[in-house]
């Protein structure tokens, strides 16, 4: 079910081209925003990173559920859950970093207790915990990890809801412009945003496939090691 090496090379080149195109469109082709000026160019990486972060955690939850379901149980689902969560954490960190860098010129501050930013920050730690759990391994860790991923995913809407309720109650009277929204009134801006979403999705898919392949090789190798260990253990009965 894992694609061949040739296909992934072709796929990788396509991803690379999309990312280069994104940089060109984001930095050169798209016009500066009427209010925010050139700072709005961060939109084209910030929003795709955030989108992929959420998509990745959704994929992790879905793959974990498919692993837990007896009929669809397959180690590949566990590998996908891990690969996706890893890239998701990367993108979550990136989203926070870009939000910060964008917030400084627009809000005048690196950090704002804004709902989406705060939710993303909590998500980062939620899934860092999940990755830490995965790293520890264990005898039958896949089922445990899958359950942990589902519990974390249940927490996502709760975090989002409580945080947005909190910030909406507290932000009246804020001295900052609490909107980071850019008015997309230009076709080139809209296209660049879609290009960004597409390029990041491709990169996400490529990284996931690569990471899954790596995890697949690792588990195959450990299966071979087990074979050798059994032979060694049983080969010399006294």
């Amino acid at each position, binding site marked *: 079910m894992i694609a061949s090496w040739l296909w992934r090379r072709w796929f990788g080149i396509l991803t690379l081209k999309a990312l280069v195109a994104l940089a060109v469109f984001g930095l050169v082709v798209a016009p500066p925003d009427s209010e925010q000026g050139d700072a709005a160019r961060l939109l084209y990486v910030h929003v795709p990173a955030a989108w992929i972060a959420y998509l990745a955690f959704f994929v992790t939850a879905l793959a974990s559920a498919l692993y837990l379901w007896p009929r669809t149980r397959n180690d590949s689902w566990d590998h996908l859950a891990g690969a996706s969560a890893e890239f998701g954490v990367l993108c979550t960190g990136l989203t926070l970093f870009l939000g910060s860098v964008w917030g400084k010129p627009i809000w005048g501050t690196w950090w704002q207790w804004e709902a989406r930013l705060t939710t993303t920050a909590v998500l980062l730690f939620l899934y860092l915990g999940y990755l830490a759990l995965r790293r520890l391994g264990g005898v039958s860790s896949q089922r445990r990890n899958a359950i942990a991923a589902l519990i974390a995913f249940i927490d996502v809407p709760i975090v989002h809801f409580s945080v947005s309720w909190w910030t909406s109650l507290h932000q009246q009277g804020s001295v900052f412009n609490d909107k980071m929204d850019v008015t997309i009134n230009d076709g080139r801006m809209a296209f660049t945003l879609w290009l960004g979403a597409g390029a990041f999705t491709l990169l996400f898919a490529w990284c996931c496939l690569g990471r899954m392949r790596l995890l697949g090789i690792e588990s195959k190798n450990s299966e071979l090691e087990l074979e050798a260990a059994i032979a060694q253990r049983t080969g010399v009965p*006294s």
Partner: protein
Amino acid sequence: MSVVRLRNAVCLLGRFPALAGADLDVRAGEIVWLSGPNGAGKTTLLKLLAGLLQLHRGTATVLGIDLAIDRHTHRSSLAFAGHDTFAYDDLSVSENLGFAARAVGASQDAAANAATHFGLDDLAAVTHANLSAGQRKRLALAMAFARDADLILLDEPHAGLDLSGRELLDAELVRAATAGRTVIYSSHETDRAVGLNARTVRIVGGLAFQDALAEQSE
């Protein structure tokens, strides 16, 4: 009737094949003695039979239940005592026994009887933390025997017991076997097996070597 049937059973501890393709057959009412050097896989075998470890490969049927599919159902008809006592330090002997019996749905009478059989009556109020190693062993065995089980799995039950404790234990094992229960225990004590009329299964290198006589009679 076959109580235990293992074929090419592989069981992992981490990545180490503690059981590396073991075959084992045990019939109802048998007392089976697992002998073998340290690290041979005796504890893993007992834990696998109890459903505490996952079967990695091969087949394992215990009390008619396929462990590859279901590691839960057969637990209600088995008793297990391991290296750990499964007891709580801050609870007394009678409290530990009472909790263990309630947890498995056994009567308090059964718990009291088990305490008497293992000579624990004088220690009823002593907490587990204040027991000697041998007394803890007796408590662990009494907790296991409080359950009305078809299959009794004991991991080195003789270790740490004094002579009277061993005799009490052996009497319980014989009683269990005559009542039609099956006992599988591991031990390094060669002399104990003779009095019990136990069948010997040697565990070496993650494999089980069954007694030649027993195999012929099959």
